[in-house]
Every structure is written in C-alpha cells, then in structure tokens.
C-alpha cells in the first residue's frame, strides 16, 4: 500500500520538476514572428482594460510591438526585453509575476496548502494501518 503512495509522491515530484524546467525551454535565438507574439502576449496593454499588448490595437500597443520587434532585430533576448520594460513601467506590465521578494508568497502559498492538504489526507488514510 505504501508503495502506491510513494509512487503518487514520485509522480508529483517529477511533474513539478518538469514544470519548473519548462522555463528553460525557450525559443531558439533566431528572431521570428512567433517570438514577438510570445513576448507581446505576456505584456499588459497599460492603457487598455485587461488586454495584452498582442491583443490590443491601441496606439500604445502598436508602438510597443514595433519597439519589441526592433529590440529583437538588435539581437536582444526575451529576458533583456522584459527586464528593460519592467524597469521602465514597473512589474505591472508583465503578466508573469516571476519569483521575487514580493511574490514569494504568491507562488509558495498554494503549494504549501497542497502539501498540508496532502498531509491531512495521508494521515487519515494511513491511520488505518497503525
């Protein structure tokens, strides 16, 4: 029985690890249309109501699209573009909150609750075998 639970835990750990490694699999360095879309999909259109730069046709969004294309042509990486935009407009502009001092709880809290929930359920099921 315990092996089943161990297996479950293993599956969980593996899937978490895979998800964390996802971040490293990014697009190749050659600049493409898709890369621009990937970046603009993760940016907030600051003058719109809850739209991404990619979705919006506002002047702000259009000029941002041009700017990002230009930066990519200059050989900048995604990270460099994101960090320069965050520096200029603040964290508000990126849809990915990233892990920082301010957002540590945001990421950790749900995972913590998951572990606590798992512990409670695990205890309840295992109690039977004591």
């Amino acid at each position, binding site marked *: *029985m315990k092996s089943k639970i161990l297996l479950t835990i293993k599956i969980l750990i593996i899937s978490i690890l895979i*998800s964390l490694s996802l971040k490293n699999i990014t697009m190749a360095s050659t600049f493409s249309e898709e890369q621009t879309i990937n970046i603009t999909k993760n940016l907030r259109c600051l003058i719109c*109501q809850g739209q991404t730069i990619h*979705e919006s046709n506002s002047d702000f969004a259009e000029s941002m699209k041009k700017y990002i294309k230009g930066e990519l042509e200059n050989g900048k990486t995604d990270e460099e573009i994101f960090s320069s935009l965050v520096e200029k407009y*603040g964290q508000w502009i*990126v849809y990915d909150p990233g892990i920082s001092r301010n*957002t540590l*709880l945001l990421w950790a809290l749900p995972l913590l609750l998951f572990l606590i929930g798992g512990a409670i359920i695990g205890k309840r*099921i295992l109690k039977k075998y004591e």
Partner: protein
Amino acid sequence: MVISQLGYYSLIFGLLTSVFIFFNSSIQLKKNNLVISNKTFGLIGFQFFFVFISFISLIYSFIISDFSNETVYNNSHTTKPLFYKITGTWGNHEGSLLLWLLVLTGVLLGFIFKSRNEPNNYRLLTTLFHQIIVIGFFIFVLKTSNPFNEIFPVQKEGLGLNPILQDPALGIHPPILYLGYVGTSIIFSAALASMISNYVNKSWAKNIKFWILFSWIFLTGGILLGSIWAYYELGWGGFWFWDPVENVSLMPWLSLTALLHCILTLEKREFFKKWTIVLCIITFALSMVGTFLVRSGILNSVHTFANDPSRGIYILTFLLVLVLLSFVIFITYENKNFTQKSEIFTLSKETAVLINNWFILYFLSVVLIGTIYPIFLDVILDEQISVGPPFYNKLILPFLIPFVLFMSIGPSLKWIKTNFKIGVKSFLVIVFTLILSLITVYYIGEKNIFVLLLFVGFFYLLFKSLDQFREKTKNFAQIFSHTGFSLLLISILLNSFSSKEIVKNIQVGESFTLKNEKIIFKKIAVEKEKNYESIIGFFEVLDEKNKIINLQPEIRIYNEPEMATSEASIKTTLFKDRFITINIIKDQNFFNVRYQHKPFMIWIWISTLIIMLGGMFAIFRKNKEVNI
C-alpha cells in the same frame, strides 16, 4: 414613472415581508410549533412575488425607455433594439443586483416547495438563515444600489448601453450565471440549518444534492456563455483570459465540483460530514467574495463597470458577518453532529473522493490567491503586479497530470474496499493511449515531453471514462461529465498548441497567406443600422483544396454611446474555426487584419455541454442506486 414607483415600493414591501418571515419563523421555532403553515409558505411566495413585480417594473421601464429612472437613463437609449432594452435591465450594477435578489428569493421558494417531506425544523431553520441573506441584500439594494432612483428634470434621451454588452449570448449570460451563482445561497442556508437540527445525514444529502447540481449546471452554463461571448466579441480569439472576473466565477464552480463529489459520498456512506458542511459554507462565501470583487470595482478588468467604495464595504462587512455566523454555528454544533467513526481504505471510492477534493481545493487556492494577492500587495505595499496566464499555467498544468490519472481510476473503484488487478484489457488501454498521444504530439509538432505527458493523461481519462459504458450498472451522470471533462482538456490543449495566426495591415485588393491558404481582401461596404453604422470587410479564403470560404468581419460604430467595436467573422468546421477581425488604422486606407486558425474550438463548447448533460443525468436519475 408610476411603474418605477411601483417597483420601488414593491421592494420595500419585499423587505418588510422578509423581516416578518424572519421573526415569524423564529417564534415558530421557539414555540416548537414545527409546522410550515400555509402562512409561512404563502409569505415566502409573497416575498418572491414582490421582488418579481419590482423586477418586471424595471424591465418595463427599460422597454418604454422611461428616462425619469436613473438606471434606465444611464444604460439605455430609444434607438436600441427591444431585445437589448430588455437585457439592458441586468447589464448594469443596479439591475443585476435586483436579479441577484430575484434568484435569491426564488431559490428559497423552490427549496420550500421541493422539501415538503423533510423535517419541518430543518425547513424553518433554512428559511430563517436564508432571510438573513435576503434582508442583507434588500438593504444593500435599497441603500446603495436602488434601481428606481429618479432624475429630475426628466431626460429626453438615455446614455445607452455599452456596445460590447449588446449581444445575444451576453444578454442571457447573467440570468443563467446568477441561477448558479446565487443558487449556492440555499446550499449555505440549508447547511447551517442541517447542523442545528442535527440532520447532517443521508436524507439531508439527498435533499441538498438537487440544489448543488442545480447551481453547478447553471454555473457551468453561465461560464460557457461568457466564454463563447468573449471568444467572438472581444476580438482576439481567446475564450479564457484568467481575468479576475472570470476567476470569481470559476472559484465557486471548483468548490461546487468538490462539494458534488462529497455529497454523493455522504449520501451513500455517511462520510465527510464535517467537510461537506465546510464546503457548503466556502462555496457561498466564494460567491459573496466574487460579488464583492466585481461590485466594488476593486478589480482592473474588462468587466468592471461599477466604481463605488460604499458598495464594496457593505458587501465585505456582510460577508464577514455571514462567515462569522457560520463559524460560530459550526463550532457550537460540531460535537453534536460529527461523532461518527471514520474508516477509510486506501483503495476505495472514499479515498478517490478525498484525492479529488485535495486537488480541486488546490486548484481553487491557486485561483483565489492569484486573484486576490495582487490586491493585497497593492493595498499593503503599494506595489502593482500582474498575475496572468503564466502563473496559472505553471501552478495548475503539472498538477493536472496526477489529477486526471486519479480521476481515471477513481470511478472504477468500489465503496469501502477494492481489490485491484491489472488485466490485459487495462494494459491495452494504456498502450493505445501512449500511441495516440505520440501521434498527436507528432502531428502538432510539439517536442516538449511535458506536453506529451498531458496528452497521455487526458487521453487515458477519456478512454477510461468511455470504458465505463461497458459496465453493467452504468452511471451516465459520471460517464458523461468525466468524458466531457477529458474532451474539454484535450480540445483546450490542442487549441492552444496548434492555433495559427497572422496579422497584416493591408488595403482592399491585397492578399496574404497563412499555411496553405490564401486570404483575399475583396471589398469594403458601409451599412447603416438602427443603433450603429457598420463597415463590413469582404474576404475570400482559398483553402488548400481551392474551395472558397467567405468571411465578413465588421467594425461597428455605435451611436449611443459613441464607440467602435470589432465584430469577428467566424467559420466553424469540426476541426477548426477560421476567425477574422478587422480594425481601422487612423488616417490611412489600410486595415489591420487579424486572421486565425483556431483548431477544435467547437469541441470546447460541445464538451462543456456534455459536462452539463452529466449533471442533468444526475438530477433526473431519481430513486435508482447511486454509484458515483
């Protein structure tokens, strides 16, 4: 004008009736006079009737464009088609709260009617608790959001309804959504009542199950309508944006889904009593949180139309009172209700339900924290962050794999204890799943192993769910909802990984290509409608077999209020949607054209309908043996 007055006084009478019902049922309970007399029943009927009259008067004021009414003035216009005059009634803050109240009093009436064979003290207590919510909302409507405020001098013309709300799907979206959203209130009242009357048992589960399913089905339908609307109206071809207002409808849905599985266990095995009650309370609290977030205007979102702090503070205080009340009742009556000894075997349906709840509550916590964390950060540290799709994808997707695996085997487990063995057949299912997943991943050209794992999990769930059709005692409710869920996940995944799009600025006569298709911009035409002017682009798409597909996206320039919207033109086939929108570029002859391939779009809607169908099977499967 007179009608408006009628609506207002009707509301006041409604409030008075509520207060009367509240005291009447308390006295009855105190005297131990446990009959729901025709009087009480009649009063509840009257209460609903008063709100109904009020609601009808507001609709009437909208229909006749009575601009002495402030709500009508702010949200309607004489040139609007009749249908949108009517749907405009709930397309605004005041009217939508009146709809809240209508559903709130309606579900109580329905509950009292449907629970004729239940113990009367339980019914009376439910009425009592429900009146607390009803009175709270009556006061809220009358104090902060009166839909019948008058304007003097009377205006000749109204300000009009936001054009993006002038849409058939969005017209019926609020009533459907509210039936689910506000329907959870009766679950809350009944849960508190069942604790006090010591009635948390199998018969209670049977009784309240109907309302859980009722809310769940309508909430699913409401979310579906909202998504369909967002897909074609907002113009960029997505259907879910992890927007806070979408999240607040998803949270009670998740909680209801967890509750649904619990209540079936309670009905069958008298298990998880305490947890079921907690879930009942959580579900309604989440509905209230949602109402607070939307109605206070605290969110930065496409849906926020209202901005008034006093409303927010009222709902928040009221929510805290209700939560506190339920907390006190829970603590006080805990020992009286939950003394049963629990025994759970590792391989049993009970464990499967526990694991189901564990994951669903985790997903719920991700959505909840993702939605409210930025608000707290903003208030406390004055720092603004955006929590968007990347956050939810990273925290939810990896957990979906174990979740669907458990979901695949859960239904084939038995109550109490199962002896598990892997036969040749199950082995074949696994092999088949793997092969199909590999083919799919190869076909969409995705090399990521994680995507493969997602497909494996989703396909496995699909086959295991379909496999249930071979069982002797078929549980159609479970088969349909689980099959629908797996289809939904598969279609969403396929859709997000193989959508293609191209954005071009072109003139009439020019063309461009996407994959093997040629898109030609034929001509432009201008048409005048009653409430808007429309610029229509005529496009021809030559597909790979040289078949011509016509698409006519529009730009609508509404007159009241003056606003331009972009109407997508969509051609749906079984395997993909062709989706096109156009936009004007300022001072130029060019149009901004966005053309997209959205694979398996229709399956996202169909699978959600299948999920709902599962819920309906559960409602109509009456006295048969229940077997989740």
